[in-house]
């Protein structure tokens, strides 16, 4: 399969190296600027935050690979977290809580997928509508209340340690490896690339477009549901507006990671590095005590700049 991106492809490799350089550059810069940066605690904290972002962004990467977008991930995380939290408190069963979170995420993904495939709505408008519907339902459901106090066994997945390393980091590695294998070595994965690169040729060469798109949106919903559980376990509390500020960073992570908005180009490893870069930048702003209100501004600028860079690089490679 020579046309698909892989690590033997020199362009792909150099793009990843560029991004790794950015990571290293930011790290060196921050460690000069502040003593608080280069401590084991802070680095583990960065990794833990990045892992949460990556969980959300991994499913979103699949959607963006098909030239679509899922703007409802943040709202999905919010709703799944609130539902799962309520179930956890009501039943005391970690398993049921898990199932609720993931099923809720998957169902929302399915709804998105149906809107995009059956009704042929543009994905950004369908998922944007979904965002507000979910926000509305979540606010109504929570009625302004905050729930907290989950069992210790549940909180393990968010704030626990395993051999001295936070549990979410293991999840991140697991998703990175399984996601990469899924994308590169399975037919499903290859079909997703094909679909994003050129939907018409993909359909003509026998890719079941509707079913694959549905799968992609459901997977995005599931990763959002999973992320919501990790988020819930780490915060140990949930309220209605929990997922509001998560959508922009997730999209930014995918786009910095080199996944093209126009579909067909991108890798899981790229998204991981993207999540790292964004987390490092936001963490750095925190450490240098820059106004927290500016975080959305920085994220917004990063989104625009990374799409622009992607476009410039693509034009260069076409010419």
């Amino acid at each position, binding site marked *: 399969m020579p046309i698909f991106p892989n690590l033997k492809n020199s362009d792909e490799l150099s793009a990843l190296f560029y991004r790794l350089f950015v990571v290293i550059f930011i790290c060196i810069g921050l460690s000069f600027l502040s003593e608080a940066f280069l401590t084991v605690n802070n680095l583990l904290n960065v990794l833990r935050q990045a892992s949460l972002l990556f969980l959300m962004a991994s499913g979103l990467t699949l959607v963006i690979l098909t030239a679509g977008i899922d703007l409802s991930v943040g709202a999905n995380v919010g709703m799944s977290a609130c539902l799962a939290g309520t179930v956890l408190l009501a039943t005391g069963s970690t398993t049921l809580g898990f199932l609720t979170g993931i099923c809720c995420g998957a169902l929302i993904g399915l709804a998105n997928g149906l809107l995009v495939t059956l009704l042929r709505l543009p994905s950004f408008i369908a998922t944007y509508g979904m965002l507000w519907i979910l926000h509305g339902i979540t606010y109504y459901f929570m009625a302004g209340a905050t729930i907290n106090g989950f069992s210790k066994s549940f909180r393990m997945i968010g704030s626990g340690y395993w051999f001295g390393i936070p549990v979410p980091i293991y999840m991140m590695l697991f998703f990175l490896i399984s996601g990469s294998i899924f994308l590169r070595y399975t037919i499903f994965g290859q079909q997703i690339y094909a679909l994003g690169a050129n939907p018409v040729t993909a359909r003509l060469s026998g890719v079941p477009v509707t079913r694959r798109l549905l799968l992609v949106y459901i997977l995005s919903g599931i990763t959002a549901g999973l992320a919501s559980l990790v988020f819930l376990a780490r915060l140990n509390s949930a309220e209605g507006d929990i997922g509001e500020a998560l959508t922009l960073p997730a999209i930014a992570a995918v786009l910095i990671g080199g996944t093209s908005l126009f579909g067909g180009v991108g890798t899981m490893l790229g998204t991981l590095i993207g999540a790292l870069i964004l987390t490092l930048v936001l963490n750095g702003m925190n450490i240098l005590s820059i106004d927290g*209100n500016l975080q959305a501004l920085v994220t917004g600028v990063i989104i625009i700049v990374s799409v622009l860079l992607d476009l410039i690089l693509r034009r260069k490679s076409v010419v």
Partner: protein
Amino acid sequence: MSNIHILSKNLGYRNYFQRIPGVAMMLMVGIFFFGILSKDFLSVSNLTNIGLQSSILLLISLPMTLVIMTEGIDMSIGALLTFCGVVMAYTLSVTHSLPIAICLAMCSGLLVGLINGSIIVYWKLPPFVVTLGTLGICQSLALVVTDGQSITDVGEIVQLAYNGKVGGVAIPLIFSVIAYFITYFLLYQTRFGIYVCAIGGNRESLNLAGVSTNFYHLAVYAFSGLMAGVASILLTARMSAGHPTAAIGMEFDAIAAVVVGGTSFEKGNGWLLGTLLGVLTVGVLRNGLNLLGVPSSVQVASIGLLVLVALLIDSMKMKS
């Protein structure tokens, strides 16, 4: 030239009679439904109230119609409206001069609109991602200017823009009527409007005809930003304060109004009167649900459903 003219007329008025039932029916059903369920709904004061409340939404939905007709979208307009409102309130609190505040609010709207437009038009980035980026930027700036607090020191005069009357007609309604007719004139009587239809419908042939498409495309986004600035005057007057999250999410109401009004995301197919009816539909829905004591969170969800229903009907019409 004459051919393009006829084409755009057709685009503008196509399905004229097919569409009237859609939006107008929804509006009728809404008025009928809430009229039965709530006694206060059909009172004169409440209906005037709906008109006043809808004026801000109308001011940003009109340019949104043009933006969507060019196959674009402006997600930043709610955050931009907030930002302009904050700029206006801040200027008022510092200088106490209404003209300077209005001028600065409109300029900052225009500026962000121009930035949106330049990035979209000259660098050819997808509109939704660019305006999503500027959404974050405007939201952030509004928070930074106010430091997360409300600015209440805006003086008394500014309230006149929302509560005042000229010749017995409320000022927001005058704003709405003027804005509607200006947009109507631009869209249906000028070259600009013809090109807007054509940018969405067939940009390639417009380029080949020697029209500087980029300029007109940029103008659409600049107009959108400017109108957000104008709307922010009403917003600030209504709240007589500048609040950093005042109109967050309002872009969704605007998109809802435009989509419900029958403007489609493809082929430059837009309808201005439909947008007006769409704005009223959203206004009636919000107001009616409010009177019935439905919490605002559910109102938001119901507008989401309204959009999906409208799109569903639209896609079924396309198939038939």
